[in-house]
């Protein structure tokens, strides 16, 4: 079985489980809706203040949803002792990582699209004009978030009090990604062209490359033993 095929099998399995149980998607969507309410409470009805805080809130929403979603990446494997099965998989273990990462990116993207639509609806923001560049920023940010999240989730699933440890480890590692993503989103929402945020996009793309590479290289050490 080829490398790509093995990654696909993992991805397909996760997607299938999610499609049939809808365990995460339903809860995460409702969670996002609740987040919107909370943000509204926290900031009050002042439209100006809301508008300036919006990019940060948007990414805060993504990261909170991501913490919940990504942290569960390997829960099914642990609960059903499938961890052994993953470990016994022949060949390069990083295929498993890439499969899981793709699955997480798809899940995160689905949640993010819903959250963005809800934001546009509730806070009356025009997201249509900068839609294409915004999608690029979202894609790069999501990849960075999921790349580290998947790797750390594999570790913390095996550790006592892991669900608490997961955000403690993930959040500092995400600061460059968050910083770049929030700044780029802010500029785009203010109507600046994509060229103005090129340096942020470069930072994001650079971080993504580094994170994914690290994940691919170190995943086999996490999985063994």
């Amino acid at each position, binding site marked *: 079985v080829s490398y790509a095929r093995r990654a696909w099998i993992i991805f397909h399995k996760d997607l299938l489980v999610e499609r049939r149980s809808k365990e995460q998607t339903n809860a995460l969507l409702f969670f996002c809706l609740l987040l919107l309410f909370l943000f509204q409470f926290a900031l009050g009805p002042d439209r100006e203040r809301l508008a300036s805080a919006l990019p940060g809130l948007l990414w805060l929403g993504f990261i909170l949803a991501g913490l919940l979603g990504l942290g569960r990446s390997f829960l099914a494997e642990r609960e059903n002792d499938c961890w052994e099965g993953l470990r016994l998989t022949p060949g390069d273990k990083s295929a498993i990582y890439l499969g899981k990462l793709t699955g997480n990116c798809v899940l995160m993207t689905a949640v993010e699209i819903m959250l963005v639509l809800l934001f546009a609806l509730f806070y009356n923001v025009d997201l249509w004009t900068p839609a294409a560049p915004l999608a690029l920023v979202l894609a790069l940010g999501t990849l960075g978030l999921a790349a580290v999240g998947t790797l750390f989730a594999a570790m913390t699933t095996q550790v006592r009090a892991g669900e608490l*440890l997961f955000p403690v*480890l993930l959040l500092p*590692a995400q*600061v*460059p990604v968050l910083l770049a993503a929030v700044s780029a989103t802010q500029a785009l929402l203010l109507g600046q062209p994509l060229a103005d945020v090129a340096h942020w996009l470069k930072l994001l793309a650079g971080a993504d490359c580094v994170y994914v590479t690290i994940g691919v290289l170190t995943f086999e050490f*996490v999985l063994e*033993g």
Partner: protein
Amino acid sequence: VTHAPGWLAAVSLAAGLAAGFGYAPREAVQGDVQRIMYLHVPSVLTAYLAFGLVLLGSIGYLATRRPGWDLLAGAAGEIGVLFTGLTIVSGSIWGRPTWGTWWTWDARLTLTLMMFFMFVGYLVLRGAVTDPALRARYSAVLGICGLVLLPFIHLSVYLFRTLHPMPIVLKPSAPSAPPAMVITLLSSFAVFTLLYVGFVMQRYALGEASNDA
């Protein structure tokens, strides 16, 4: 042998203090508060050194599986957290009279704080895993992840607008401070490096002793 660098560091620390307060001239604009630089800059350099050692120990462990490498990475991680803490605190004390605030969300400060959190997380992970082999493996992976952030921290200094003073010695052109200041700064680098070696050796010996027990 374990104690030798420690004692050497203690003696040279006293000499460094004397140089910082006596030999180095008073800065014209900032006044005496500038002398904190002789603590602040070597601290951060030592923190970087320590985190470099975490990376080395992590890679060494994953490559050879010798527990000694893990012990080294763990010791260096603790010392790194200590010196990053020192950097932040000393910078804060300098910032109060100079910038008029203890803390500002400047890019460089924020990212140093992030580095601090990252390695506190590293220590928390080490504390949470009881199985030594598992702990060594996981913390090695985390150590490597944490270290790839350092280039971003350095990059950020040039990418963002920042209040933080620019490097004086380690830059392409000639040093832009009087020789006495540069000499004091360079000798405090040496003092802190000694101190760091002493701490790491102590911590390593402690770790070894607790493993044997």
